[in-house]
């Protein structure tokens, strides 16, 4: 579906000059500063994949997405979406993609949602039967009928995002970009939108690229995760693998029959105590739960236990800081 | 008094936006000065010395008018309308400052800022490039400043009343337009009031608008002299006081309405 090979985008910006006549001097300056927003990235995404695309701000995320949408022309490299080169065939590409931007609506502000949808129907040449079918689907899964006659300006955030989803999917795009689609939304609506995204992906095999800062979204929805930083792809693979590779720290949570004093456990660190519970962090390569449990149970009687996996957020933070914990520990 | 300087200083610090704004306004003034000077030279070539006013005085009048135009429209109406629309008015009402004076301070701060950044450069340009003459006499110069300040107060209160009206009707653009159009005409901003024939002339003489441009500019150019100056100043004072009182009265009521409607 998406093929990206050695994609690079280099920006050359005229160096802005300071001072009173700064603006004018900038206009006549020939000093440039070069930024490699996207630096030789390559990846393939197959049809029907649900990929989480994350990275710190300024990492090159929006630049790469803009190139996939055909809005931006690459400096070098090859990019292909469903057989088309996006920037060369902007309008044809536009027919096969859809996008939802959490920060800004794609619909017309002052008119009822349904009017925007009708205009999209005409713009994207959606056959009437498909239009009606999709509307029914949206009514069912997004409760569209509750607010379709309301102007976007009067919608709540959750409703507006749902309306934008409807707008983005009306023409049955093969590829859907979701850029922070659930920002600021309450948990109930979030859950519904996650379900909707998974269903659309599953039923229609729509390829989805989800950009978000909320790791729970990624965890619950995506099967694959790509991390970009400073223009490079620093991780590309499925989530379980990532956890195994980078999430070396697991936690054993033990609830004792009574409150017990602090004690040390070989190969584990006590990170937290709350009443009768104690949290022990350990490196998955140094020991395993059963060894720890055996040891702990010889110290004090145990009431209950659980093993916690590392949070994706912590893992990603680790990757951002480019200090893969596993590499350090493994080398000891 | 400190408040006025506080607001003015605020503007000096946000240089980035204002630098740009500055160049735009100054360039606009240049163009307008150029235009108006030629306009009056052409007109006067047909009737030199019309109405006992020399060409030099006439050109000075309009060129100076362009230089000081920016000082008057400092935007209380827009600010007020905007605050109500966005709900931020609550923040203003919570402050331990009389709203009326708050607006006056803001407006004056902006005005002072513009004197230094726009008007003075404008006047210099006018003097060197567009035949702007010096005041007719030292006395004229001084009285000009007095008349300008009074005219400023009259204009401020008119704008304040406009703003108050817009806070109630939630409608600003059209009211603002109508007001500016009227001011354009009756204030002598573009065409000095001594040209106005018959009924228009009479109307212009009694409406407060002449306080804004016509009086200060006539004094500066020396067209208005002696007792005429005194009369004009009293006229301005009269309107300034009346409008001040009306503004406060209106504001009491508007504030009440805003509070009871929840802003």
């Amino acid at each position, binding site marked *: 579906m998406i093929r990206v090979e050695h994609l690079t985008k280099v*920006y050359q*910006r005229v160096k802005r000059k300071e001072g009173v006549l700064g603006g004018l001097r900038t*206009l006549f300056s020939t000093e440039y500063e070069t930024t490699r927003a996207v630096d030789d990235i390559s990846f393939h995404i197959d049809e029907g994949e649900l990929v989480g695309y994350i990275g710190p701000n300024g990492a090159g995320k929006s*630049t790469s997405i*803009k190139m996939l*949408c*055909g*809005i*931006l*022309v690459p400096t070098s490299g090859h990019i292909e979406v469903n057989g088309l080169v996006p*920037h060369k065939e*902007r*309008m*044809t590409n*536009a027919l096969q*993609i859809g*996008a939802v*931007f959490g920060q*800004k609506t*794609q619909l*017309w*502000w*002052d*008119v009822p949602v349904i*009017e*925007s949808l009708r*205009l999209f129907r*005409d*713009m*994207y*040449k959606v056959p009437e039967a498909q239009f009606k079918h999709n509307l029914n689907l949206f009514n069912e899964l997004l409760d569209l009928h509750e607010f379709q006659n309301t102007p976007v300006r009067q919608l709540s955030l959750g409703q507006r995002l749902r309306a934008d989803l409807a707008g983005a999917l009306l023409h049955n795009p093969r590829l859907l970009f979701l850029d922070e689609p659930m920002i600021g939304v309450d948990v109930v609506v979030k859950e519904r939108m996650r379900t909707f995204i998974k269903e659309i992906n599953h039923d229609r095999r729509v390829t989805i690229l989800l950009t978000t800062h909320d790791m729970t979204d990624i965890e619950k929805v995506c099967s694959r995760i790509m991390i970009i930083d400073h223009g490079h792809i620093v991780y590309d693979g499925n989530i379980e693998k990532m956890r195994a590779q980078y999430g070396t720290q697991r936690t054993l949570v033990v609830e004792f029959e009574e409150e017990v004093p602090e004690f040390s456990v070989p190969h584990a660190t006590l990170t937290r105590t709350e009443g009768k519970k104690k949290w022990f962090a350990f490196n998955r390569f140094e020991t395993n739960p059963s060894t720890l449990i055996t040891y702990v149970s010889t110290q004090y009687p145990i009431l209950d236990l659980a093993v916690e996996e590392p949070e994706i957020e912590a893992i990603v933070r680790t990757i951002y800081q480019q200090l893969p914990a596993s590499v350090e520990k493994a080398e000891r | 008094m400190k408040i006025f300087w506080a607001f003015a200083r605020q503007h000096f610090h946000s240089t980035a936006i204002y630098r*740009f704004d500055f*160049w*735009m306004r100054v*360039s*606009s003034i240049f*163009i*307008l000065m*150029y*235009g108006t000077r*030629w*306009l009056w030279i*052409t*007109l*006067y070539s*047909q*009737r030199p010395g019309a109405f006992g006013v020399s060409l030099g005085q006439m050109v000075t009048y309009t060129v100076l008018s362009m230089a000081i135009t920016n000082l008057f429209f400092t935007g209380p109406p827009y600010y007020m309308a905007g605050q109500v629309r966005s709900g931020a008015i609550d923040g203003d009402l919570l402050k331990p400052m009389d709203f009326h004076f708050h607006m006056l301070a803001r407006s004056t701060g902006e005005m002072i800022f513009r004197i230094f950044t726009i008007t003075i450069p404008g006047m210099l340009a006018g003097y060197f490039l567009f035949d702007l003459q010096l005041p007719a006499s030292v006395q004229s110069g001084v009285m000009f400043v007095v008349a300008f300040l009074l005219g400023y107060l009259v204009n401020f209160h008119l704008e304040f009343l406009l703003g108050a009206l817009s806070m109630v009707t939630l*409608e600003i*653009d*059209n009211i603002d*337009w*109508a007001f500016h*159009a009227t001011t*354009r*005409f009756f204030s002598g901003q*573009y*065409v000095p009031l001594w*040209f*106005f*024939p018959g009924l228009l002339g009479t109307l212009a003489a009694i409406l407060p608008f002449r306080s804004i441009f016509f009086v200060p500019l006539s004094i500066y150019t020396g067209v208005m002299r002696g007792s005429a100056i005194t009369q004009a100043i009293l006229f301005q004072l009269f309107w300034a006081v009346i409008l001040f009182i009306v503004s406060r009265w209106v504001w009491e009521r508007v504030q009440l309405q805003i509070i009871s409607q929840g802003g």
Partner: protein
Amino acid sequence: MNGFQLYFRLIQISLLSRMQYRANFIAGILGLVFWNIINLGLIGVMVTQFTSLNHWTLWELVFLYCLWILCHSLYSLFFSQSTHMEDYLIEGTFDQFLLRPANLLIQVLGRELQYIEIADMLIGITGIGLAYIQLNLQWNAWLWSFFLVAVVSGAVIELSMNLLIACSAFWTGRSRGSFIIANQFYGLVHQYPIDIFGKVFRVFVTGFLPVAFMNYYPAVLLLGKQGQLGSAWPLSYMSPLVALLLVGVVLIVWTLALRRYSSSGS
């Protein structure tokens, strides 16, 4: 959906949006009418006292003013959004346009119908009508056709000028300032015959920012005042040519602007 269909659908949805604010409609129209009356009033006061402005009598000035208004209202009614390019770039609206399977220029121009310009249009027509009677103009078929062509050309000229200024935003990020300055020139050319100004100004608004072709030059022809131009009288016929020329320039610059946008992403 072809270009025209797209344009009309966009206008339709914009009208729908405007109708949400009905009260503004009437107030807006009244405001505009009032503003124009005031402007004409000022000109009237001046001219009455001086009998003419460089051989332009009152009704000739009314004609000049209203010819501008007619061209402007035609342009503004359909295309006033062209001045908002800077906002579209900053707010990301332009990216949204790029995501849609539709022509970009039409999306930009079709964003809104400035219904309020109908007021200006009426004023323009009324003013010209009155001037025609007062001046006892007697146009033949050729002059009538030229009048119509001049109005359309004038609208095209303003559209092109504004689009060119708007496109500067693609390179400098800002167009608002340029518009403010351009508007000063528009204001002067709109209200006064340019022959009262100095040579530099006249050359500027004829050759560089050719807005004098919106009202001045056609008016000279339509009012039979070629004398004002002396040896430059051919200029009075040239507004359609200027319009066509500008359209060509706009198309080139627009293409360059798009190319720049998609390569520098700002």
